[in-house]
Structure formats: C-alpha cells, structure tokens
C-alpha cells in the first residue's frame, strides 16, 4: 500500500491540508467558493470523489437522456483544479476517517488533514422488498441518482417495453419521464394516497395525477409493493405484487422511494448522527468534531435534511467563509420548489399545507383543465405563508416574493391565484421588492446585490450572470432576474441600448424627429450632424425610408439611391437567382380586361413566370436587371403604375366585390378600397402596411387580418386597426364604428402618420400596438379625441405625401441618368450567363443546382 502522506508533505509542507470528501454539486461549489476566497494560499486542498466523472449538474441529470452528455452536464471550468493547485482524485472512495491521527483512509493509503469537509450527499433508498437476486436481476432494482445509474437504465431499457417506478415523488416522476423518453410504457407506484406527498396537498396531487395520466403514464397511488418475482411464462420479465392482491407486470423496476444521507463514514468514526440519519451540524456547519464539517445532503441541521441544491450551496459558502474569513452562519433554507415534471408545472412554496396556526387558504380549481392553485395566508389575511401550484408556474415568482419577503397582500389575496383576463399571471413590479428580496436562491443573490452589480457597470444579463452568478444554478429565477435588471436600468435612467446601429446612437423614432424638426434632406447631412462612419445596411434603408416619408423625394434621386435595399433601388423584388419580380399596382384588386391582356403580353414577350399573388394582384417573375426599364415602359403605356411590392410602404388594399354585385353588400367596398389604395400608395412606413375593405359583415376581404381593416355597416364603416397575417397573426381591433367616409379617411391619415412617427424600424402596426403604452385606449385618445393636439399636423403631413405622389417607375423612365443603373454589366450588354431557366407547367422557373448540368435545360 502506497502512503499518500509522503508526497503530500514533501510538496506543501508549509500549507495546511484541507480534504473534501465528495465531489458532487455541493462539494464542488465549496471548492469554487474556497478558491474564490483565496483559501489556496493557506491550504493544500484535496478533493475525493468516488464517481468517475468530475462534478456534474445532478439537478439536470435527466437531460442526459435528452441529448446532453457528461461533458455538457459538468460543472465549472474543466481546468479549475489544475489552475488553482487543487488536487482532484476521481474514482477514489474514502473508506474511513481516523480522527485520532487526523487522517483519511483510501484503498491507496492514508492522507493527513487539518480540516475535513464531508460532502458525501445521499444515496437512493431501496426498501427491502423481497425480490430476485440483484446480481442476476439488476433491472429489477435500478436507481436514479448518478450518470452511471442512467447508463444502466438506458442499457436495460433497450430490451424492455414497460417500466415501473416505485415512488411518486419529485424524483420518481422525473424517472418516469426518463423511461417514457426511452420509449417505454411508464408507470408510477406510490405508497401515499397522492403524488408528490411532500410538496402537494390532496387536491394538488389529484390535479397532477390527471395531467400525468393524460400523458399516458400509469399512476397507482396508495399501493404498497410486497414482492417482485421474476417470471418466465409471462409477456413481461417481472410481476410486482401489491398489498391487497393486485399486481402489475413489467420489464424493469426503478426505485425512487426517497434518499438517505450518506453518513456511513461519520457513523464509523463516531460523529454525532441524527436519529433518522444525517450528520449533525451546527450553524457553522461543524460536526461534533470541530475540525470536521459536513455540508449538502449528508448534513442534518436543526433536525432537518435539505434535499435541494440551494441549501447545500449555502452551507458550502458558510464553510468557505469559516475557513477563510469571518464565518457567515447557516440559518436554514427555503424549501420552495418550482419544477416541470413530465412537462407539467408544479410549484410548492413555504407552508404549502397551511400548518401554521390560524392559516387560511384560497383555492382555485380547474377540473376541466386539471389546474390547481392554493394560496395559504396568515390568520389576519395580511401575509402570504405558502402556496401550491399545479399546471401553471407563471404564478410562482410573484407568490414566492410575497411569501419570502413578507410583502403585504392585496385586499383580495385571491387575485394572486386567479386567472387574469389579459392572460398570464399577475406580476409584482420589480420596484415592489425590498432590497433584501431573494432573487436567486441557488446563489443567494438578492435584489440588492443585483442593484450593486448594475451600479458597478453590469450592462447586460450575461455580464450580470457572470458577476453575481444569479440564474446559473437551477435557472428558475431567470424571468425574475431579467425583470429586476431592466427595472434597475430604467430607474437609473440607463437606456437599454436601443441604438439603430453603430453609426447612429438613436432610435428610429428619434431620428425621425431630427429629420423632421431640423429639416434634414439627405443621409449625408444626418450622418454629418448626428452619426459616425459611413453607415451600413441597417441605417441606410431606415433613414432612406424616413427621408421618403418626410419629403417624398423620389428614391432614385442621387442622394437617396445608395441608401436603398436592392428591391427599392431597382423598384422590383430580387428573387433567389438574382432576377426580379415585377408587380404593378392593381388597386383594390380591380382590373380591366385590357390591362389583363397587356400584362399577359408583357409576360409573354419577356418570358416571365406569372402568378396571382395572395394580395389580389399579378406578379411577373424572372426579369433581369437590364430588362426592367423596357418592361416598365410597356406597362406604363398600358396604364399601370408601380405596385411598391418592394417597399416598406402600402402594399395592397384587398377588397371584396361589395354592394355593386353582391346580394348582401351594404356599401361600395371596391370604391372605398380604391380610394384608400390611391391615397396611401407611395407612403413610406416603418414596415409594410396592408389594408382590406369588406362590403358587409361576412368579411370576404379578411379586413380584420390587416393593418387597417374597414367593414361596411348599414350606417357607414367600422374601422379596425393593427391586424396582421403572416408570422404571428393578430386580429385587428375595433377602433371606431359607423363612421362616414370622410371621418374614416381622417382617422386613417392620423393613424398612419402617428405610426410612422412612433414605431421602431421594421415594426408592423400589430407589434407597434402591443408595445404602445396605454394600448388601444391611448391610441383612440390620440387619433379620435386628439388628446395630444397632433391631429392637424399629422393630417398636414399626410396631405403632403398624397399631393406629391409620383409613380417611381414613371419618374425613373424620364431620366437617362437613373436608367444607367439598370445594367447587368456596365461594360457589356449581355445578361447574366449564370441565369438558367427550365420549363415547368408551361412556364419558366429557375433551374435547380442539379438541373443546371443536365442536358435537358433550355438556356436563354
């Protein structure tokens, strides 16, 4: 046997020996804390862990089954120990502690210590149920605690169809989920009459059960397993017999019947042990031997074992402080938990069972949706004591703050657990939290600490996480952290950086105001006065759009031309192969047969793919740059004008046929659509704007899915605003009812100009509306009641745009200088030789890569 003593002493004679037994989550946190506090100057630290992996995130162990490997779960920097001269001994089990000689024992020898920290965690309790021999039937006695356990589960699951978990607590449900994710039919057998008996009351347990059963997991509560027998004549490998005569067949059995503190070493060397296990510690985390500390799940404080990581971390910090500086005592910990089990939200806070004397409860039960929330309040109804949540944890953060910080309850405390009409849980503004409020309980970070970090310069969440460690444990506090952070920034008047880009440290709205107020007419002028550098593909188009809205100069004018995205530059939409689509305006979707013929002729002549768009018009695809002017020459001759399909501007006003033809129509929706489209065509906006006009309430024009929707009524028009189709559909909201045409136009003028003035870049009206403080009511006040006194100005600005409208294509065609740009090559008249089309359904389309080489192509 080798004697470890010798080299330890020869290397670091001058340093004290500090040994940590256990390299789990808490042991590891303790090492980090010791390093951070400079303990390595005085101590030679040795860490022993009997698992072969370096410390990993046991809390997220289940993610091992959803793609994370041991490396991804590992905690801290891989080279932490080397860098700080801490020796890490993995796969080494400590077999004894010799307190008289102050040495620990391993199979490889002895090592002396001056101080010793026991962080051996706990082990899964496997009740002594009679069953087949473990060595031959490991799959009948699986457990769920370490990576090796999970490897074993994975191995046995590969040949199994059904798996049973004994124990319906937090870990049992996680284990059941793991079995399910491995493709097994999963069952949970719980001795108590409900699931999660430690955290949930009966009704909470019942709601959880319903949700879990709905996921196809079998739940058997009030079931005591008496025996497991191996069967050979059955479809399944084992049969579990329950008290009362029932049975359940399965291929594997996983025990999750609770944990027991791993206190054997302490027992053997005579340290004080609790009646039901656990190494007794005081508030400095010292055991009955003052040179020996115990932390984490193996430790018993005030008669209590803490089976959660946050209290263990607090103990680790206590020990690190005791060994380096002034001892920060451990004073218990909150056992509130928020979990997602099998995708079901479960939360338990404080006195969840209402055991405090005089406590009263509010309960909200949703039998249809299996939701349950309980709020426990003090006898006098002023303070929250605890809560139980099943189904929706969005209520958790707020309730936790009420409980932890003794915040006075609202007059009707029930509102805290009732569903809100706006959707989502009630929130407690970050300003209502006291500085002592715990934001991150894993790392003991209070609101005060976050404020301090912000004061010291943390300017984003990432920096804050590095500085305070908040939200780097279980992650449950992420939402609250963000809320507090943003509130702190705002209250310091620090702007959350909303700069347009590196060239302009202003928002789009601010730049819009500068352009208008200072009468700036070009990008150069704005850059000179308020910007830096040369500009980029973010600020140029945005400012191009602002200049266009304000002054309505043709976008092809020399000072504007370099600002535009290619679509605006060439007044057509670039397609994937570098060609363009041509989309003339077909206002309101109304088109004469002659114009239809003309479109067809142009498409045929230039061999363009033709398609009816979703916006009631016709798109001609596949034109090359140098063909655009000729195409437009012909279209304009036939009476067309540009459709602005390329611009952030009004697209189409979709109409239905209305009372002209339709037997139900009550107004002329086509005429109104034409009026709107011709009025607002050409207006440059922060994002595109779409409108719709329906002739009656049947709504064939889908106006309620548009930025501006108009629906005819017997008495006039109903106006809807801020709808959206596309990526995130939003119904438009009713803004005004039974208004006449003039009022309608006035409101729309004001609405659009107000949107242009206050929206962010690339913000559709729907998103703008959602970000608008004061919401729809505010918007109505500004537009209808003219509460800001802006009405006239907005209308004036709109009139300017309307009066100065000119078709951009007509403008460009008049000017040979502008047309010079429409050359594929400035030194050659040919087209791009790499554009290759094939014919499909009698029309051209770009050849796909694999077609280009084949002989079947028709080269143009």
């Amino acid at each position, binding site marked *: 046997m080798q004697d470890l003593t010798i080299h330890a002493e020869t290397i670091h004679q001058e340093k004290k020996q500090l040994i940590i037994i256990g390299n789990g989550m808490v042991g590891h946190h303790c090492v980090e804390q010791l390093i951070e506090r400079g303990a390595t100057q005085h101590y030679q630290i040795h860490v022993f862990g009997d698992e072969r992996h370096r410390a990993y995130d046991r809390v997220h162990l289940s993610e091992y089954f959803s793609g994370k490997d041991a490396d991804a779960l590992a905690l801290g920097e891989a080279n932490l120990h080397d860098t700080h001269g801490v020796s890490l001994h993995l796969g080494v089990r400590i077999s004894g502690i010799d307190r008289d000689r102050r040495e620990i024992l391993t199979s490889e020898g002895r090592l002396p210590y001056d101080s010793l920290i026991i962080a051996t965690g706990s082990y899964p309790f496997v009740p002594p149920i009679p069953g087949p021999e473990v060595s031959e039937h490991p799959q009948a006695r699986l457990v769920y605690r370490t990576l090796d356990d999970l490897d074993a589960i994975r191995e046995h699951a590969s040949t199994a169809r059904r798996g049973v978990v004994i124990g319906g607590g937090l870990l049992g449900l996680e284990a059941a989920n793991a079995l399910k994710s491995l493709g097994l039919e999963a069952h949970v057998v719980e001795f108590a009459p409900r699931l999660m008996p430690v955290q949930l009351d009966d009704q909470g347990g019942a709601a959880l059960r319903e949700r879990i059963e709905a996921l196809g997991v079998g739940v058997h509560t009030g079931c005591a397993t008496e025996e497991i027998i191996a069967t050979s004549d059955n479809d399944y490998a084992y049969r579990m017999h329950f008290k009362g005569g029932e049975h359940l067949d399965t291929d594997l059995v996983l025990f999750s019947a609770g944990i027991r503190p791993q206190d054997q070493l302490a027992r053997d060397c005579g340290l004080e042990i609790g009646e039901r296990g656990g190494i007794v510690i005081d508030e400095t985390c010292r055991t009955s031997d003052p040179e020996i500390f115990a932390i984490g799940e193996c430790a018993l404080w005030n008669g209590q074992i803490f089976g959660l990581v946050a209290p263990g971390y607090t103990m680790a910090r206590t020990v690190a402080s005791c060994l380096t500086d002034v001892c920060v005592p451990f004073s218990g910990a909150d056992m509130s938990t928020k979990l997602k089990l099998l995708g079901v939200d479960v939360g338990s806070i404080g006195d969840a069972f209402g055991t405090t004397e005089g406590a009263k409860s509010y309960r909200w039960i949703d039998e249809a949706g299996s939701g349950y929330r309980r709020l426990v309040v003090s006898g006098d109804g002023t303070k929250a004591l605890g809560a139980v949540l099943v189904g929706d944890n969005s209520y958790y953060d707020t309730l936790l703050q009420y409980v932890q910080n003794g915040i006075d309850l609202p007059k009707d405390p029930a509102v805290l657990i009732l569903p809100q009409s706006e959707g989502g849980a009630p929130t407690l503004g970050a300003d209502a939290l006291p500085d002592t409020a715990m934001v991150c309980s894993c790392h003991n970070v209070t609101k005060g600490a976050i404020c301090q970090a912000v004061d010291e310069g943390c300017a984003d969440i990432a920096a804050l996480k590095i500085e305070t460690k908040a939200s780097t444990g279980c992650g449950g506090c992420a939402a609250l952290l963000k809320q507090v952070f943003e509130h702190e920034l705002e209250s310091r008047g620090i702007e959350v950086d909303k700069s347009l880009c590196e060239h302009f440290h202003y928002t789009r709205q601010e730049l819009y105001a500068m352009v208008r107020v200072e009468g700036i007419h070009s990008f150069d002028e704005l850059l000179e006065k308020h910007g830096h*550098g*040369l500009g980029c*593909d973010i600020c140029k188009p945005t400012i191009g759009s602002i200049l266009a809205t304000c002054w309505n100069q043709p976008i092809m004018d*020399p000072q504007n*031309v370099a600002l535009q995205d*290619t679509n605006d530059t060439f007044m057509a939409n670039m397609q994937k192969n570098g060609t363009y689509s041509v989309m003339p305006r077909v206002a309101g979707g109304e088109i004469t047969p002659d114009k239809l013929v003309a479109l067809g002729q142009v498409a045929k002549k230039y061999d363009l793919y033709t398609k009816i768009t979703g916006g009631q018009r016709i798109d001609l695809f596949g034109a090359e740059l140098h063909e655009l002017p000729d195409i437009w020459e012909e279209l304009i001759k036939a009476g067309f004008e540009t459709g602005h399909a390329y611009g952030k501007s009004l697209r189409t006003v979709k109409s239905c046929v209305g009372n002209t033809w339709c037997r139900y129509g009550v107004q002329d929706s086509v005429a109104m659509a034409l009026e709107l489209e011709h009025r607002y065509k050409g207006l440059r906006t922060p994002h595109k704007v779409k409108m719709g006009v329906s002739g009656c309430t049947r709504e064939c024009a889908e106006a309620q899915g548009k930025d501006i929707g108009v629906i005819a009524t017997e008495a006039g028009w109903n106006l809807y605003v801020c709808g959206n189709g596309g990526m995130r559909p939003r119904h438009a909201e009713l803004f005004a009812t039974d208004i006449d045409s003039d009022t309608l136009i006035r409101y729309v003028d004001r609405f659009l100009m107000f949107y242009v003035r206050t929206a962010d870049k690339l913000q559709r009206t729907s998103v703008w509306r959602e970000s608008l403080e004061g919401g729809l009511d505010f918007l109505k006040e500004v537009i209808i009641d003219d509460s800001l006194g802006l009405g006239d100005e907005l209308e004036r600005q709109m009139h300017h745009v309307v009066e100065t409208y000119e078709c951009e294509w007509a403008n460009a065609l008049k000017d040979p200088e502008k047309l010079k*740009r429409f050359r594929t*090559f400035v030194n050659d008249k040919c087209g791009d030789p790499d554009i290759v089309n094939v014919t499909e359904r009698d029309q051209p389309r770009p050849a796909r890569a694999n077609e280009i080489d084949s002989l079947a192509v028709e080269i143009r």
Partner: protein
Amino acid sequence: MSPATAVENTARVLCSVHDLVDYSGVVVLHDGRQIALFYLPHGRDRHSAPEVFGIDNHDPFSNANVIGRGIIGDKGGELVVASPLYKQHFRLDDGVCLEDNDIRLATYDVRLEGECVVIA
C-alpha cells in the same frame, strides 16, 4: 474618345468613372468573370481622394451573382458590402465574410486612372 486610349500601361480598362455610382455598386464583365465595383467618391473617411473596390460578384450563400447590388458601409471600422439576398457582410479590402471567416470572395486590384477604372 474611348476610355481605353487614355491609358498607356498594361492595366486594362473596365469602364468609365461615370459608370460608377456614388457609395454604391455596379458590375463589369471581365475575362468571363463578374466583378462588382464599389465607389467611394470621397474615400473611406468621406474626406479624401476617391476610392474604388473590385470584388467577386458571385454570392456563395445564394449562388446568385448579386454582390454588386448590395449596400456598402462599415462595420466596426471595416468597409463591407452586405449581400442583398441573405445579408452576410463581406470586407471590401479582402473579401472575407464577417459571419463565416472561412468564406472569402476574390478581390481585384482595381483603381482609377483619370476617367477610367482599370484593373492591374
């Protein structure tokens, strides 16, 4: 007068300076290659002599010949063009793609000689 007669060395004329567009791009066909030419009429600081850049017109991300139609500007002090299709940025000086440094467009040694844009 054809622009070519104005130059007397081995450099070859691509086009006239009047074909260029201020702060923007045009494309020339040269020996079967498509070269996008970007023009800064007052240099990269907006206050010095004119500069012209030549860079491959082929966009490797879309496989279309469109680089010459991108917006130019600077990012972190480096001159770049943004592809008009999927908006990756390429440095005008060496063609390197900022989003993916392994990708680099060919750049060409182009310059102004009198009224002419020439390639070395």
